[in-house]
């Protein structure tokens, strides 16, 4: 721990030295910025090739299998919702409402995040509840307000679909499909959903014309006055750390009975004290995992790529436009009605009024558009049919 800190600060001084040496060119690109803790924020950077997942290596066959499974509602409780139901390719591979749709009879309690570029993330879900795409897929398919599937039934369904039986055997070698391999195949498929043809990537790779002058001004604000880079840094524009930035509690909980049900269910399911269950009225975020009171209201920084397609924004979908988001930050983490987090004691010191002028806000918004490239479309796969395992003749021959 100590060692790595030393290394980091040594690296930081080298980076600063480089900046100084390179002079004006580097200053213009603002490739480094210094954070509160004296650490250096990694600069925005082109999206690198996706790293190989060492315990789930990709093959074309595995990816293809994962693609079919992603769209197959039989991976779920009542065979009516698939991954693609809440991560709809036509809605940015997410869901275009504040809260995600839920399993039939329920509504979710958080915003559905896009699958695009998600496999770069080491912390899945808004509170980092899964450490890999495989685990994310499993939790989502089984969660009571998401897929509500059970391992037993989902696994045996696959055995009754001859095409799956063959594909699983080819890819994983097992005689019969195993549910754990469903998550592996899905995660493999999701590594192919990459958006890296953005104006930002082109610019960062050296095409200076890829950003407009206004966007370049916006980038300066991003790295400087607006200080977005403090958390939204590196190739994904996220540090994957947890912050309370002041997002107010969801208004939907005041008026939507089904959402109130899910809210209480989540408190119950996540194992808070009875006192907390009785009184809490907002999503405590990372607290549910750490159970440290200073983590209430903290969420993992989302990445900014593909955001042109993934409105609304924030863990509870509080803001439907990027304008609202920028205004929220400009006011210091306060919405237009003056509301902020239900856990103000944990609000990050990084969040303060930015003093951006209207022009500057426009510049910043223009730059944020540069995080999105072409929309990723897909031809939905044809789902294979069930078939009986036996013929009637085989059943009649069976000895009793």
């Amino acid at each position: 721990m100590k060692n790595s800190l030393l290394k980091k600060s040594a690296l930081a001084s080298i980076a600063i030295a480089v900046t100084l040496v390179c002079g004006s060119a580097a200053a213009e690109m603002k490739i480094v910025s210094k954070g509160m803790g004296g650490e250096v924020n990694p600069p925005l950077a082109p999206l690198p090739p996706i790293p190989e997942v060492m315990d789930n290596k990709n093959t074309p066959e595995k990816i293809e299998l994962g693609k079919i499974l992603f769209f197959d509602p039989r991976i779920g409780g009542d065979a009516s919702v698939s991954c693609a139901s809440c991560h709809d390719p036509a809605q940015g591979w997410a869901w275009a409402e504040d809260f995600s749709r839920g399993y039939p009879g329920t509504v979710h309690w958080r915003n559905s995040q896009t699958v695009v570029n998600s496999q770069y993330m080491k912390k899945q879900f808004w509170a980092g509840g899964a450490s890999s795409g495989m685990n994310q897929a499993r939790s989502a398919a089984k969660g009571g307000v998401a897929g509500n599937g059970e391992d037993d039934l989902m696994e045996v369904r696959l055995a009754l679909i001859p095409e799956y039986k063959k594909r699983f055997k080819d890819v994983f070698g097992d005689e019969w499909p195993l549910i754990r391999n469903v998550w592996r195949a899905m995660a493999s498929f999701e590594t192919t959903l990459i958006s890296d043809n953005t104006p930002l990537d082109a610019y960062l790779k050296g095409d200076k014309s890829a950003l407009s002058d206004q966007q370049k001004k916006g980038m300066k604000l991003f790295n400087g006055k607006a200080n977005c880079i403090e958390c939204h840094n590196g190739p994904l524009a996220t540090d994957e750390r947890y912050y309370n930035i002041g997002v107010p509690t969801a208004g939907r909980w005041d008026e939507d009975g089904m959402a109130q049900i899910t809210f209480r269910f989540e408190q119950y399911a996540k194992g808070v004290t009875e006192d907390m269950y009785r009184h809490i009225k907002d999503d405590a975020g990372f607290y549910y995992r750490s159970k440290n009171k200073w983590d209430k209201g903290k969420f993992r920084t989302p990445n900014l790529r593909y955001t042109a397609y993934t409105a609304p924004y924030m863990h509870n979908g509080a803001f439907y436009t990027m304008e609202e988001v920028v205004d929220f930050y400009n006011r210091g983490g306060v919405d237009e009605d003056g509301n902020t987090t239900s856990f103000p004691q944990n609000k990050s010191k990084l969040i303060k009024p930015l003093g951006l002028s209207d022009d500057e806000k426009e510049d910043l918004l223009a730059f944020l558009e540069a995080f999105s490239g072409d929309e990723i479309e897909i031809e939905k796969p044809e789902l294979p049919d069930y078939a009986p395992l036996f013929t009637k003749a085989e059943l009649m021959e069976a000895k009793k």
Partner: protein
Amino acid sequence: MSQKLIKRGRLMMAVTGLSLAIVATTGLAADTDIGPLPKLKTDLLKAELGKRLFFDKRISGDAGISCSTCHDPEHGFSHPDALSPGYPGNKHFRNSPSLINVSHKKTWMHDGRIGTNLNDATREMITEDYTMNMDMRIMQERTKQDPEYVRMFKEAGYGEPSNGSIRKAIPEFMKTLTSRGAPFDTGKMSRSAKRGQKVFEGKGGCTACHNGANFNDDKAHNTGVPENFDVFLDPMRHQAFLAWGLFLGIENLYAQKRDPGAHIQTHKADGSDMGKFMTPSLRELSYTAPYMHNGMIKTLEDVVDFYNEGGGQDSHKSELMKPLNLSSKEQKDLVSFLKALSGDRLEGQEFVWDQAYPAEYAPIANWRKVRN
């Protein structure tokens, strides 16, 4: 705690003494004798709450089915299909048994996998993925969202709605589903039925298994009922069978071409316990066709015919099963007797929740200020 146990022990001894005394004087109360069902004390408010829950689709995962979907009061709280519908997204692999007199059993499910109490049987049906697939935490919060439930739970003495109380209230309602008015109990049997009773207890040998007030021995037997191939030919049903078998540890599951039944209780290595099923009650049969664990026999006449021939084909068939050589008159009389075991229809408001449920969950007003 120990005090309580001692008291309970004494009470039990007293009760045992009492029943011995009755046996000695009347000779009627021995366990295996057929006779009227004992009355069950029910808590009216709890049973009323249980009734509302029983007919409420919100008690299933996707709010698509209620208990009454498969246990339909129109059919003696069973289902008229050979195999039960099951949860949306799959179908079931066994016949839905009648819930009338279900409180008078000691073991539940055709394979007898629940041997504790009706609370557990209720939990099994609510949570199992191929039946109601309900996360009980969501179920609890759904009931808390309905002011009518909040009122009913409180008035029934349960406090606020909870999944634990739901699993108590539904069995309380099921206690009200007790036969009444059967000619056998009222003593108003036809002559044919009376003759049938003699066959039942004598030449038919039915009381070997169908005994006691509920006409069942709470044991599993292999009578050689033919397989219902739909279980294996319809992937929607087969998946429920496989999910059941996977959970219960059936070996070589995907090669199974028959329902192992109560084998899941005893797991005999030689398979001699394969194909045993729990003896069902014979009460209310007039409403609960088709018959057997897989609905393979459609009428009572066919059932009697099946037994008259000594049951079906099975290498592990019970030795109790042999041809009965009943005359056609005896068979008719036996059917008459079986029909005399059916009482009044359990219908109307006493047994069926006929008020509408709210179309959606109303929000709790002033949400941020009130306790959850």
